[in-house]
């Protein structure tokens, strides 16, 4: 074990942790643990908005053009006159649901929270490499989230061109009202978001590389940190490309350039654009857009690895294979973006290349799935809510991942492209899976975040309600897709071809609504436990990570005395010859203890 971390920050600088007023402690805090909480709570609130939107448009799909008092109440006269959702309002909701869930909940809410919380704690660092950059990153994220929410209320409504904002639809307010002020705010918000995300990612990478404590070599890093570290690298590589796409789109919209637009005749007149190509935008967008799904899923995988090992009381199976597959997925994720564009009109030869690279991703993914299953095999499984969500995660990851074999194959994609089959696929494999990962992380590290325990029984109800409903929503959706129903249709009964799917759509919506109700159990549990939860012990799950060696009360600098020294890998659970069924990373080897593997 040659690579030894450097202890840059000494303990003395952090002795003054109790000073500071309300603002420096709770608002403009430099402490990574507080920033993690800020990310989490912002993410949860954005999640409530995003999920609510999906329930509303699901109601419209199931009972098209029916009047609901709920719509009148929540959407107002502009989006739902007389309680009937308007068709452009439907597209606005779909667009904002996608944007909010992908970027604000599953990117910032998930990796923002857990990178901030876990990276310093698990590698044995006093804080992030730059606390100030970290604070800045959160507040820019907060600003972008605020702007995105404000954009819902501007004239013309929020962006409505789908979360992929393909021009020309997103560029021309004549084409759809949401492409006016709403789209401008969307682009500005996303630009700020990308700046925030890049600052955060740079910080995470710098911290992991430089601030590991003594003995914490890369080969002893918990898989959580590996996943968060690689996620940060993917973010640095791909997010700036989206920024460039957004900037060029701003030029096209506001300064009359033609990067993405050409030969357009709209509302009775020929527009001046000439020579641009919407396909160029698709390339730029998906160069981020595809890695983005791994930015969302890798942290969930990292959290799941940690929680599964801890609750199964077993070492994670194939530690090195897990790292290799994270790296493999990360590398492949940057060269598969074209599988979103098989029928975009790009050269079919590119389609062959992207089919090849895309299907290769199935290999590291299969390795991960089987390694999780083997870790669970022959364990002594503690069925805490976090563990249940991890088992749910592996289950949906498999169900959703398998259909990727169909969508990644250009020949088959011709026919199922942009149908509900795609919706079912990506919601299971990245949406629901990542959400389960996030829930698991919250239940598991809640004692670390807030010093209290979440209620177990509410957790069980939340879990079982959620898994049954999520499966009830997204499994039948494959069959809607295999009937050929295109996505983003405001109503499926405008012409008779899909009339026989009426029942199925109602069933899906009912599952979605009930599933939404079950989230109330979580919200209640989450917010009340902050104040009334049972006081947590230092290491409630008897886990090996360094984060559980810090005091329950948060202090600046994390460890009151010297930094812990690491002697072993993080997965020595149930090791034969040890008195307990766990061995924290800072526990020296016992005399005569066998040095297995790591």
């Amino acid at each position, binding site marked *: 074990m040659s690579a030894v971390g450097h202890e840059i920050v000494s303990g003395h600088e952090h002795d003054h942790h109790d000073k500071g007023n309300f603002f420096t402690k709770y608002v403009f805090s430099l402490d990574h643990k507080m920033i993690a909480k800020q990310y989490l709570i912002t993410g949860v609130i954005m999640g409530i908005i995003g999920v609510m939107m999906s329930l509303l448009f699901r109601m419209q799909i199931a009972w098209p053009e029916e009047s609901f008092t709920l719509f009148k109440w929540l959407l107002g006269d502009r989006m739902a006159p007389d309680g009937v959702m308007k068709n452009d309002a439907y597209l606005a909701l779909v667009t904002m649901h996608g944007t909010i869930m992908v970027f604000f909940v599953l990117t910032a809410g998930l990796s923002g929270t857990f990178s901030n919380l876990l990276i310093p704690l698990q590698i044995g660092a006093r804080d992030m490499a730059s606390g100030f950059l970290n604070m800045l990153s959160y507040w820019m994220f907060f600003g972008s989230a605020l702007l995105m929410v404000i954009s819902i209320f501007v004239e013309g409504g929020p962006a409505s061109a789908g979360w992929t904002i*393909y021009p020309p639809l997103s560029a021309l307010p004549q084409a759809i009202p949401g492409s006016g002020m709403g789209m401008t705010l969307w682009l500005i918000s996303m630009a700020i978001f990308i700046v925030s995300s890049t600052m955060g990612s740079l910080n995470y990478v710098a911290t992991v590389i430089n601030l590991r404590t003594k003995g914490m070599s890369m080969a002893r890093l918990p898989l959580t940190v590996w996943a968060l570290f690689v996620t940060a690298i993917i973010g640095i590589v791909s997010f700036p490309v989206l920024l460039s796409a957004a900037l060029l789109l701003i030029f096209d919209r506001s300064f009359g350039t033609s990067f993405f637009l050409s030969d357009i005749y709209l509302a009775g007149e020929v527009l001046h654009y000439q020579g641009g190509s*919407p396909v160029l935008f698709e390339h730029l967008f998906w160069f981020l857009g595809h890695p983005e799904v791994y930015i969302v899923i890798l942290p969930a995988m990292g959290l799941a690895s940690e929680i599964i090992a801890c609750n199964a009381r077993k070492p994670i199976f194939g530690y090195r294979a897990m790292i290799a597959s994270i790296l493999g997925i990360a590398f492949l994720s940057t060269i598969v973006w074209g599988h979103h564009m098989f029928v975009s009109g790009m050269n079919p030869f590119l389609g062959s290349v992207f089919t090849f690279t895309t299907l290769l991703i199935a290999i590291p993914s299969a390795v991960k799935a089987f390694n999780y*299953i083997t870790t669970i095999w022959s364990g002594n499984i503690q069925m805490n809510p976090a563990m249940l969500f991890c088992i749910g995660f592996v289950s949906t990851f498999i169900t959703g991942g398998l259909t990727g074999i169909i969508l990644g194959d*250009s020949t088959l994609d011709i026919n199922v492209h942009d149908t509900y089959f795609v919706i079912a696929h990506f919601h299971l494999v990245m949406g629901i899976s990542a959400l389960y990962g996030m829930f698991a992380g919250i239940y598991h590290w809640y004692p670390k975040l807030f010093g209290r325990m979440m209620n177990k029984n509410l957790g069980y109800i939340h879990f079982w309600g959620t898994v*049954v409903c999520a499966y009830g929503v997204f499994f039948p959706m*494959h069959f809607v897709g*295999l009937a050929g129903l295109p996505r983003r249709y405001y109503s499926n009964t405008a012409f008779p071809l899909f009339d026989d799917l009426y029942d199925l759509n109602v069933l899906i919506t009912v599952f979605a609504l009930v599933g939404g109700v079950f989230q109330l159990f979580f919200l209640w549990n989450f917010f009340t436990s902050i104040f009334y939860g049972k006081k947590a012990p230092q290491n409630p799950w008897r886990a090996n990570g360094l984060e559980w060696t810090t005091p329950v009360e948060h202090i600046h600098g994390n460890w009151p005395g010297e930094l812990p020294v690491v002697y072993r890998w993080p997965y020595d659970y149930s090791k034969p010859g040890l008195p307990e069924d766990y061995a924290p990373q800072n526990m020296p080897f016992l005399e005569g203890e066998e040095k297995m593997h790591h």
Partner: protein
Amino acid sequence: MTSLLILAVVVLLGIAVWQLTKIFELTQVGSGPDDAASQIANEKDNNINGYLLFAFLGFIYIMTIFCLVKYGSLPLMSNPASEHGILVDNLMWISMILIFIVQIFTQFLLHYFAFKGRGIKGRKARYYSDNDKLEAVWTIIPVITLTGLILYGLYAWNDIMFVDEEEDVLVVEVYAKQFAWDVRYSGKDNTLGKANVRFIKGINLVGVDMSDPNAIDDKMAKELRLPVGKKVVLKFRSQDVLHSAYLPHFRAQMNCVPGMVTQFAFVPTVTTAEMREREEFVTKVNNINNIRAERSQKLMAKGEEALEPYEFDYLLLCNKICGASHYNMQLKVVVDTPEDFEAWLAELPTLGEQVAAEEASNAPAEEQPAETPEELSEVNTDNEAIAQVVK
């Protein structure tokens, strides 16, 4: 039917919640009220949730069977109406069966292992962290399977996407705009006249350059008719935003991109009349008509008009978000016998005739009739000028 279904689901879930709370409450007996340990899973929790996980496996299987029985007609995987559709469907079935088996198998392992290993006090888990052989197995098996799928996929893809220009084909343009489709046949010369949105004027809806000699015999239509058994090359254009021409029955799809011509070629193999007579479609149409009849009754009760009965037709659907009425942008597609197709096509006027007729009828009405032809030619030269300026 639907309301019953909803009611059943709600009632079942209600019962499930009630039971769960009760079970979980019962497990709490014996642990102190203010003890953090009460919030950590104990042996009873492990047991209950272990059994529930196993039951969830049952739920997955039941859901699968339910969907297969009730919605297993899978229109995208049966009755292809094009030559390459058979190839696509084959690959689809192979992949689907493979997925199905892996899904059933791995879900079983996952939930069964979780159930089997539910925590018992005093038992020690097996310290098992590596096995190179096992890992090699589940790396190599996917590699082999995927190699097969990739090879088949690439073979089919090349077969479908690369069109041999030498072949005897029918060239047809499908033109998209918010929120309708236009169709242009290339006429006797089988060559479409050049076009650009800058030429759009009056009846010349898709901006054909009338100075191009190939354009005169082009023919416009409001539906897409195709002769059975002949390869058709569809050329796609869009005048405003992205659209996607999706022909699910023919396993065909291509985006329509403003500023660019895209294409997709296929051979229709089943005429509309033949398809209507197939058993699956008779059943499907009857089913839809029953549903529509029910809905009609409700509408009539409200004093609105009844719905028209449904008759099967191939459709081309818009499948790329394109604006508020994206959901209602289809084009009727008819596959005819070659004779019927030729007869239908022969009756359509050529674009040259239509434009001439429009000019003639406009001429007396306008104050300066002499300018009309000049205007047209002006537009032609203007276009080149504009192109240069922009560049």
